[in-house]
């Protein structure tokens, strides 16, 4: 008995949103030229930002955007994990808690009273936390927003069962490879590059600005030494140093500890 040879089913891709601004999901839509190719290689089974059509799980690859900041989020992420073979967090929110994790350093009740006319309708957690604090994560993609080429590379690598080429090294390596003259040494501009993971495509230093650490901490960051240089050589006070480490990756472990040392 012979059976008709069937084309293997395309892997199913889902994109999930938690507490976030949608910017990272938009990076996927922004892959204009490549999106058709992606859509051919995978079945986009769940992606509300792009289409209302939903295909039931389980999913081969789940891209998760956003942090866990509400009781509802905290429940829902477990459902996503159960339905996902590979779970990839995309962006600073999902990977480090995002800018909304600034609440973790303050009293969230006070914020709610100050901001909302009817605080009683607000149901939120005291802290905004990364996905990895709640469920196991297979790959974390940094960036605020993520870089679309890095996103394509991660999807591509998973489809081809290889390691994604996403280096964990400093932004400085990308500056030097691109021939960008160091703005800190050359102009005395404070730069987070030496403790920040490369990946943005060298956006700020190549335009004469210091790095804001959008791509989170690099491997083995030496935050204390850089903070000391900011203070002793560039004239930062404690508050300024604290704020430099308290950006979109404020709640990553190394940046959190450094900013707290300057509270």
């Amino acid at each position, binding site marked *: 008995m012979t059976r008709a040879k069937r084309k293997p089913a395309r892997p199913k891709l889902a994109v999930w949103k938690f507490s976030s601004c949608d910017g990272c999901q938009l990076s996927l839509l922004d892959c204009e030229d490549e999106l058709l190719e992606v859509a051919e290689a995978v079945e986009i089974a769940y992606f509300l930002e792009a289409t209302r059509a939903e295909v039931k799980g389980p999913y081969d690859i789940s891209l998760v955007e956003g942090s866990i900041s509400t009781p509802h989020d905290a429940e829902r992420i477990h459902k996503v994990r159960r339905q996902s073979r590979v779970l990839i967090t995309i962006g600073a929110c999902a990977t480090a808690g995002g800018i909304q994790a600034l609440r973790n350093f303050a009293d969230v009740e006070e914020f709610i009273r100050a901001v909302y006319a009817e605080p009683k309708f607000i149901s939120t957690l005291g802290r905004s936390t990364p996905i990895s604090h709640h469920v196991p994560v297979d790959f974390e993609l940094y960036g605020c927003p993520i870089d679309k080429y890095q996103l394509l590379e991660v999807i591509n690598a998973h489809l081809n069962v290889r390691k994604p080429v996403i280096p*964990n090294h400093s932004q400085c390596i990308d500056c030097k490879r691109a021939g960008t*003259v160091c703005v800190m040494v050359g102009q005395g501009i404070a730069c987070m590059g030496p403790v920040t993971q490369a990946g943005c495509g060298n956006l700020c230093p190549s335009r004469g600005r210091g790095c804001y650490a959008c791509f989170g901490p690099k491997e083995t960051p030496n935050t204390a030494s850089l903070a000391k240089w900011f203070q002793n050589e560039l004239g930062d006070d404690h508050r300024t140093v604290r704020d430099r480490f308290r950006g979109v990756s404020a709640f990553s472990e190394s940046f959190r500890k450094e900013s707290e040392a300057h509270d």
Partner: protein
Amino acid sequence: MPPPDTPVVPSPTPTPALRLDAGRLPHLLAVLTADGRELIGPVVSGGAIVYGPITGADDLPKGLVDDQAPGRYRLVAGESGTYFDHVATANSWKTFLFPPEQKICDIAHADGALTVTAPPVDAPARAFIGVRACDLRAMGILGKVFDNGDFADPAYAARRRNALIVAVNCGRAGGTCFCTSMGTGPKADGGYDLALTEVPAGGDGAPAYFTLVAGSDAGRRILDRLDLNRATAAEVETAAARVAACADSMGREMIADAAEMLGDNLDSPHWQTVAERCLNCANCTMACPTCFCSTVEDVTDLTGDNAERWRKWDSCFTLDHSYMHGGSLRRSGAARYRQWITHKLAHWHDQFGTSGCTGCGRCITWCPVGIDITEEARAVRDRAAGT
């Protein structure tokens, strides 16, 4: 006992010095351009002097000098209105001889077979303008790494062969230079096609000039087309005195016994001390004109049928550099700093028969937290001696 060091650059017998009026520098550059060469020389970019493409003398940073210190670089107006009184540039010639990102090959997969296509070697005819003694030495060192017969990199060799070197003897020492103590400068002692020494205009109204010698046949052929007079003995002496004064004013030096001393102190407590400051950011290795490490990255298209293999500058300050089955060997910052300084100053001798350091000072200037290789070597020695 490591084998004795071997010469890095050939020592030519230079031609007698000619005199080139400073105002005729454009003429020299025009002759080189007419020779079919792309000119690469010092230009201002991003607040610093870097080596980049130039079209003529107007692109040169005339009158500017660089104020360099550990972790600090500023351009300021010089006193003598010279073309070449700046010192080591932010980038180095490595950028042109061993580009930061090179595609090695395309790999296509079809009908069960792999086809590998290497791109053609990109090695344009160039003239490198303003090469310093330390950087000439760096090219000699890179030559031992990449153009050594057994393990030659043909692309490196072709780029180096196609570059005509116009050296400049330094007339001013920079704040982080230490070539004198490394025996590499400030006077170019070989490996060049032409070498210039710049003499600024005198207070008595004497115009600025260069003395110019050739160190190769290619250099002599260029000189033949310039129609220049011999420099007088006094002019040659004035030029030489300027270079000698530069050597005397060098404020930084490497300790004499660095190679052996570091080899004896692999367990120094100082490695931990420097690791507290070191950001393991890799700027030093990227800026260094002799650091040659690279990584290989493979990328595929979505179908997996087409791949590209790229070679990119890497550094012993990354975890990936020492990644082996099971993890990275050099996990601590202390181990990574030790790898860098012992390779540059000690193990390079065993590997290549020369120091890996030329004393150019780039790693000191461009370290974001001002870590100074000469100070760190001294500190390891002093701690071992208990002082």
